[in-house]
């Protein structure tokens, strides 16, 4: 620095500062790209493991010191492990069967239909409860609530969003479960209804806050035009504001749906985890997420079963990605319309 320089930022363009500028720009750019790289990384890693599940079996273990007679007396799948190994999953089994039993003694099966149905059932039940309440709450907060009420309620909703899923699941076991058991006369209340109610609570904050933003984005002039036609505030809200914000509300619902599909601990603890195909809301169900959580800890590394769990994870990843992208597109359309 020369003596003549009085500014804190003098000598703007030396080779060093130019190099430093470029370096910082590059580093920040790299950090900026990290989100893209991580998303891509998750996709690629899951895809590789999934491909392994469908192509890579396990080699036979050999006789393992057993005589031919002892081997012939083993259960079918154990005999196979010694003689022909474990075959990779077939696509038709994975996507076409409702039986998930990778450790069966008789015949291994890796069908995800029952889990998929369970996930969808719990998710839809949650939305059925959370959407009317959530959109109603958003409409109230955006159109009717006094300023002070809003200032109190909004942080509370944020806090609700921060309650860990494991705590919600715990309350499903100790509070909601016994209540449901009493109402429906069952031994325990761990079933799809329990999970659905809890997931509704968990997706409410997302639905409320995104819907509220969507309602807020509707221009004042729409409301004023409605008042000018003689409609009152309720009618204006229900017939003008909510329909105008519909795309944003749909996006909010999709976001809530994405959260519900991916929620793990709550359903793991509250739905009972029976792996049969669910027939009713009072059945115990086991979702995609719960299956991974239950089994990944016990399965040996590199086996077909291990890779199969990644395939389930891949299905979850794609499912939530699609839901989120749709919500994103809808939301952008909504924002573009009113900006």
């Amino acid at each position: 620095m020369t003596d003549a320089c009085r500014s804190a930022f003098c000598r703007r363009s030396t080779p060093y500062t130019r190099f430093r500028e470029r370096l910082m720009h590059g580093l920040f750019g790299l950090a900026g790209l990290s989100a893209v790289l991580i998303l891509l990384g998750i996709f690629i890693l899951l895809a590789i493991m999934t491909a392994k599940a469908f192509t890579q079996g396990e080699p036979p273990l050999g006789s393992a010191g057993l005589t031919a007679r002892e081997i012939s007396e083993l259960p079918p799948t154990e005999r196979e492990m010694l003689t022909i190994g474990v075959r990779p999953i077939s696509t038709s089994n994975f996507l076409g069967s409702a039986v998930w039993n990778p450790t069966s003694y008789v015949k291994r099966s890796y069908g995800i239909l029952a889990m998929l149905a369970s996930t969808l059932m719990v998710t839809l039940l949650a939305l059925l409860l959370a959407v009317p309440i959530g959109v109603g709450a958003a409409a109230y907060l955006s159109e009717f609530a006094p300023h002070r009420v809003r200032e109190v309620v909004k942080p509370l909703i944020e806090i609700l969003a921060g309650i860990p899923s494991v705590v919600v699941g715990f309350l499903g076991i100790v509070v909601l479960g016994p209540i449901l058991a009493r109402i429906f006369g069952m031994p325990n209340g761990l079933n799809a209804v329990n999970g659905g109610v809890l997931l509704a609570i968990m997706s409410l904050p997302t639905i409320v806050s995104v819907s509220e933003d969507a309602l807020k984005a509707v221009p004042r002039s729409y409301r004023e035009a409605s008042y000018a036609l003689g409609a009152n505030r309720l009618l204006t809200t229900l017939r003008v504001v909510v329909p105008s914000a519909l795309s944003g509300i749909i996006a909010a619902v999709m976001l809530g749906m994405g959260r519900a599909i991916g929620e793990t601990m709550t359903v793991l603890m509250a739905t009972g985890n029976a792996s049969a195909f669910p027939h009713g809301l009072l059945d115990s169900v086991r979702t995609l997420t719960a299956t991974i959580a239950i089994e990944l800890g016990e399965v040996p590394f590199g086996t077909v079963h291990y890779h199969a769990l990644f395939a389930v994870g891949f299905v979850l990843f794609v499912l939530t990605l699609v839901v989120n992208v749709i919500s994103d597109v809808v939301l952008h359309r909504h924002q573009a319309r009113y900006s």
Partner: protein
Amino acid sequence: MTRSIRRRVSEVLGILVLGLCALLVVLALFWILYDLVATGGSSISWSFLSEPPRNGMTEGGILPAIVGTLLVSAVTLVFAVPLGAAAAIFLTEYSRRGSLNRFIRLAIRNLAGVPSIVYGLFGVALFVRLLGLGASVLSSGLTLGLLTLPWIITASEEALKAVPDDTRQAALALGATRWQTIRTVVLPQALPGMLTGVILGMARAAGETAPILFTGVAFSLPSLPGSLKDQFMALPYHLYILATQHQAIEKVRPIAYGTALVLIAVILGLNAAAIGIRYRLRKERRA
């Protein structure tokens, strides 16, 4: 006349129903908090917070779980905060518009929507296996770091955007380069706002269970983790096993309630701190 009264009544009723919806959301929160405090409150004592579990977790406290949760959250922040803040700086200071910016934002939003158990799978495959970090504090911290990254980026961005543009332009007019402007003008102003994002990120990390399930958390450990390569106990996982996996579930219920209450207290404390900072910032800005 009667028609207008009927209309007025139906309007009030309608608004009441909508208000009831909002009340229901708030009640859900209070139901959760009330139940935990009312039932779990009696489990909390100094020895509960300062002693390890004894007798197969049927007695004693939860100190190792508290320490483990704080430790793994710290690792999460060390990893996620610099990366997230740098990403936010890139998005607000270097590429405000354009297709790259939009693309990155799309990735961030989708990253935020990836299920936590999928982060767990990714953590097992990448950190535990591929990078050979094993089931450890480090693997779990990194996995949680990935999970909190989108939140930290978004919060940091908000803070950076709140810095008025004329201060940037003033710095540039004095001859500052872009990096100098960021370092000496933008960051100091945005720092408190970014801090709220960091705290909220920590609260998220502390409450997550699924991502640590297979990347390093342990059922029970004889001693506190001595290094980042050790396994650890954590509050959310401790609650999970006490509630579902313990052989004497009814007997350990008070301990489970106490654990849930401590976990919630940690998270609400962090949330309250973040909300408090944000509130003060807003006041200062208005003044």
